[in-house]
């Protein structure tokens, strides 16, 4: 667990162990936005509908702005590990996000810009100084061989716009009372997963676990995302660690926040082609 700056509230960290956030994770990784949940006690809202839960969760999980650094570790089936570090910036509740690799040298300086809920993606390669725009199908591609795709990293409103949600029986995860929701892809949607099952902490409306099901087979369990080590940063509950388990490949990738702040004023010009090269 890394030390986090800008702690404003000395509230006891909420450690979440079990399975949690699935679809939400997508957004968390790319923009950091997903990692941040505003501390809004939801007492007395146990009768919320699935749509209300998803709506509130999405709103609270996308802070207005954020800036941080993250460490991503890929673990292969053979146990081999790869580590990447990058800096992230997000604005407009995750609508705009930018991530810049800091480590290792092989990818240092490579930058990914995502706008419009990751429907527009650009990458910058410092060695050739070339900016390349990617089509949305590229969201299915793995990010540097990790278990996270571009789609997992972006699309802050995807749960609302791309899926129909149904509330299932409530369950406990690691001692925390959770709403359990099933999200089914809308017929017209191009989202990369056919179905999601999401466990949302009742008190803080933080996703704790998400199960992802295959694009072509709603019964084929493809990935599982678990959020844990939640701390209160700048008044926002923030999962400091997220792990994505690939159930088909038997690999997993963890992402840890090493530094984060929400009290920043990021210029709009950062989220441009020139901002990528700055």
């Amino acid at each position, binding site marked *: 667990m890394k030390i986090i700056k800008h702690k404003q509230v000395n509230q006891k960290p909420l450690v979440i162990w079990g399975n949690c956030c699935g679809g939400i994770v997508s957004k968390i990784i790319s923009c950091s936005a997903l990692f941040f949940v505003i501390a809004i006690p939801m007492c007395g809202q146990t009768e919320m509908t699935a749509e209300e839960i998803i709506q509130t969760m999405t709103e609270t999980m996308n802070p207005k702005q954020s800036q941080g650094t993250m460490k991503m570790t*890929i673990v*292969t089936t053979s146990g081999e590990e*790869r*580590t990447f570090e990058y800096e992230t910036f997000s604005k407009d509740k995750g609508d705009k996000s930018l991530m810049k690799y800091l480590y*290792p*040298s*092989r990818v*240092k300086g490579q930058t990914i810009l995502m706008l419009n809920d990751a*429907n*527009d993606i650009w990458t910058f390669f410092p*060695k*050739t*100084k*070339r900016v390349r*725009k*990617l*089509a*949305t*199908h*590229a969201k*299915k*591609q*793995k990010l540097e*061989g*990790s278990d996270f795709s571009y789609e997992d990293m972006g699309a802050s409103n995807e749960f609302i716009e791309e899926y129909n949600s149904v509330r299932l029986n409530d369950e406990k995860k690691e001692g925390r009372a959770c709403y359990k929701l099933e999200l089914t892809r809308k017929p017209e949607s*191009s989202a*990369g997963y056919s179905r999601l099952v999401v466990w949302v902490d009742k008190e803080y409306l933080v996703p704790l676990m998400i199960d992802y099901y*295959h*694009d*072509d087979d709603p019964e084929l369990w493809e990935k599982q995302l678990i959020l844990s080590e939640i701390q209160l940063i700048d008044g926002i509950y923030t999962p400091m660690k997220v792990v994505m388990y690939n159930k088909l*490949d038997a*690999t997993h990738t963890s992402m840890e926040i090493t530094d984060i702040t929400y009290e920043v004023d990021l*210029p709009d*010009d*950062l989220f*441009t*082609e*020139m*901002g990528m*090269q*700055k």
Partner: protein
Amino acid sequence: MKRIYFTALISLVLCICLYAEVDIYGYFEPQYTGIYTDENYYQFQSNKLRVDLKSTIVNNVEFGADVIYLLYFGATNWNILDFLPDQITSPIPLDQRALFQITYGDSFYLDNVYARLANYRFALTVGKQQISLGTGYFSNPTDVFNTKDALDPTYEQPGHNAIRLDAYLADRFGIMLMYTPVEWDWQNSGKLVRLKTGLGHFDISVLGYEFQHTTTDFYTFIQTQQRRRLLGADFVGEILGFGVWGEGCYNFMDDDDDNFFEFLIGTDYTFEGGLYTMFEYHHNSSGESDYPEYDLNDWMQFFTGETKTISQDQVYGLIQYPLTDFIMVGTSAIFSISDQSIALVPMVYYSIFENVELTLMFNLYIGEEGKVFSSSLGNGGLMRAQIYF
């Protein structure tokens, strides 16, 4: 004048670097290439060391440079005529054959050296720098600065001397102005203007570039120069879930008979599971439409980069699949529609360690002698390691 300019720029960069924190990084790249022809097997090795220096001494001011040290081994002397059809090479007198020889000698040079003044709204870059234009993958008709190797199109390109201003004027709207000096003669130097904007999920740009174009007659080795005015455009976006892009240009030459146009269109798609597919079509009106028309100048102007293709129409296809998290396998194919020959390029990329990449690439030419991808050009492959630091 040019030498003084570069000397001053390099001196400035080095002085600044002495007083500022310098970020040093780069890579070492050993490479082995083997080529097999009907008569011979050629081995060619190189060891390349690239060291990048970057320093930000004042906020918004950056100095950058990279030096390359290249050592060659094996078959370092090549005669292009050995790979061309007899009907083209036989008329060349014996005493002129040495003129077609290429020798790879060890070299040490500054590939890029520049100063950059930039904020989020504009960037002024002066010096030898990377310039890349266009949206194409295996070829860029609007990019007259670089000539891509269709077998290995993503390999880095050399730096170019230029003064370049990029300005971001409004949301997704910017302008690029560039001056590429030729002996500081305004008339002969290159002047480029490019406007770029966003329209929905598309990025679109138009550009004009005026510069001195050199053509070599390889029968007489006489070079002629004429003014070339390139008017072009490119776009990249998405239609029905498929990535689409294109670029094209019309080239107005001093001699109207030499006017020509080029365009490229492409599309790509990633399937569930990560299978990536790409297709591009390229047309070059200055290319030949049938291989009996190919002459010595067509071949040599292609090899020297004076023209981008020999044949008029070609298509490029690429398939890549992530076999594991760190191994990517794929195959590209370049098909010359004009002469019905094809080159297949199977490849494997392996990220063996965090900072070490291995590339294994083969080239298999399937075509009769005299065609663009004739087997007489030699089949083979290369192994390359890139060790980053």
